[in-house]
C-alpha cells in the first residue's frame, strides 16, 4: 500500500465506482487517512460494486438468453410451418409446370426472407434493450 495522498485520490477519482461511492471514500480518506479503516471502506466499496454488477449481469444474461431462445424457437416454428406449406402446395403442382413451381418457391423464399429479417431485427432489439437496461442499473 502507499501513503501517497495524490495517488490515493487519483485512484478513487479514476475508479469505476459511482459518484456517491467515490465521495464517501474521499470523505473517509480525509477523515482517516491511510488507516485500516480507510482501506476497509475502500475494499467494501469495491466488493459491493462487484456484487451489484454480478446481480445486474446475471439478470441481464438470463433475460438475454431466455428471450433469445424464444426468438430462436419462434423462428424455427415459422420455418417448420413454411416448409409444411411448401410441401403441401408443391404437391399439387404438375412437376413439369416450371412456372407454377417457380411461383410457389418464390413465395416460400420470400416468406423465409421475411422470417429471417424478423428474427434478426428482434434479436438486435433484444440486445439493445438488454444493454441499455443493464448499463442504467450498473450506473
Amino acid at each position, binding site marked *: *500500500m*502507499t501513503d501517497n495522498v495524490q*495517488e490515493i485520490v487519483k*485512484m478513487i477519482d*479514476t*475508479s*469505476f465506482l459511482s459518484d456517491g461511492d467515490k465521495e464517501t471514500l474521499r470523505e473517509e480518506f480525509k477523515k482517516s487517512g491511510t488507516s485500516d479503516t480507510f*482501506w476497509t471502506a*475502500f*475494499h467494501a466499496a*469495491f*466488493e459491493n*460494486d*462487484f*456484487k451489484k*454488477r*454480478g446481480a*445486474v*449481469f*446475471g439478470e*441481464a*444474461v438470463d433475460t*438475454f*438468453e431466455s428471450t*433469445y431462445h424464444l426468438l430462436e424457437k419462434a423462428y424455427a416454428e415459422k420455418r417448420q410451418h413454411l*416448409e409444411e406449406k*411448401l*410441401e403441401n402446395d*408443391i404437391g399439387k403442382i404438375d*412437376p*413439369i409446370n*416450371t*412456372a407454377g*413451381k*417457380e411461383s410457389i*418457391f418464390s413465395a416460400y*423464399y420470400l416468406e*423465409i426472407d421475411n422470417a*429471417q429479417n424478423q*428474427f*434478426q431485427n428482434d*434479436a*438486435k432489439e433484444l*440486445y439493445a434493450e*438488454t*444493454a441499455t437496461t*443493464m*448499463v442504467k442499473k*450498473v450506473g
Partner: protein
Amino acid sequence: MGFKDTIEDLGRKMIGQGDEVRFKNDVLEYERTHRLGHDEAERNVLFDRMRNVELELSSNGIISSDSKDFDLLQAALNEVFGSKNQEQYSKDAADPAIFRSIAVPPSTLPEVNRVRGYYASNFGGKTPPFAVTKDSADNMKMIQALMTRFETDPRIAGAGSIESTLALHSDLGADLGKIFEAKKAVERHERLFGKDLAFEQTMANFKKTAQNSLTEMVWKAPVDYITTMAKKGLFMKSASGLLGSLMKETARFSGREAVAGTKLFGSSLKALGSLVKNKMIR
C-alpha cells in the same frame, strides 16, 4: 484459321467467350476430320456436349452449379442460337400452345437422396427441405427426358442448320427453353440454400458478439482498473484483494453460455492474475 480469325478469337476469349470460341473451333475441326458439312458437324458437336451433360446427370444425379460440362453446353447453345433466340425459347417453354407436354415419372426416393447427398457433400452435411431436394431431382429428370426427346427428334436430324430447324419448329426450341428454366430453378435452390446457411452463421456470430459485448460492458471497467493498478505496481495489496473479490463474484458465471469463451473472462483475467502474482513476488 487465318490471322483475322485468331485475333477475333482472342478478343472473344478476353470478353469471357472462351467456351464459345472453343465450340466454334471444335466444329471446324470436326468438319475437317470427318469431312462433313458445317451444319452436320455443328449438330454433332452440340449433341456431344449434350451427352456429356447427360452423363454427368446420370452419374451424379444432379448437374452441379459449377458443372464444366453444362458451361460448355451453354456456350455451344450461345454460339449456335444467340441470346435472343434462347430468350424466345424460354418464353415458348411457358406457352402450353407451343411446349409439348412430356410424361416424366416423379423422382424416386433414391433419386431424391442422391440430390440430398450432393447438398450434404457441398454444404458441410446440411441439406435443404425435402420439397427443395425433390424439386431439384424432378427438374433433373425432366432435363434428361427433354434432352433425349430433343436429340432423337427426326426433324433435328434433317438437312439444314439446327438453328433454321428450330426457327421452323418452335416446339423444339421450347424444349431447350424448358431445359434452361429447369436448370435455373435448380441453381436458384442451391444459391438460396447457401444464403440460408449464411444467415445461420450470421445469427451465431451475432449472439456471440452480443454476449461478449454484455460481458465487457459490466466487467471490463473493473478488470481494466485493477490491471492499471497492478501494472503500475500501486497498492499491490489492494489490487490483489480486489482481484480476489472480482474472481469470487465472476466465478459464478463461469459456466454460463454468455461468459464461457469470452476473452475477458478467459485470457484477460488469467493474465491479470499472473500480473498481480508476479508483482507481489518481486
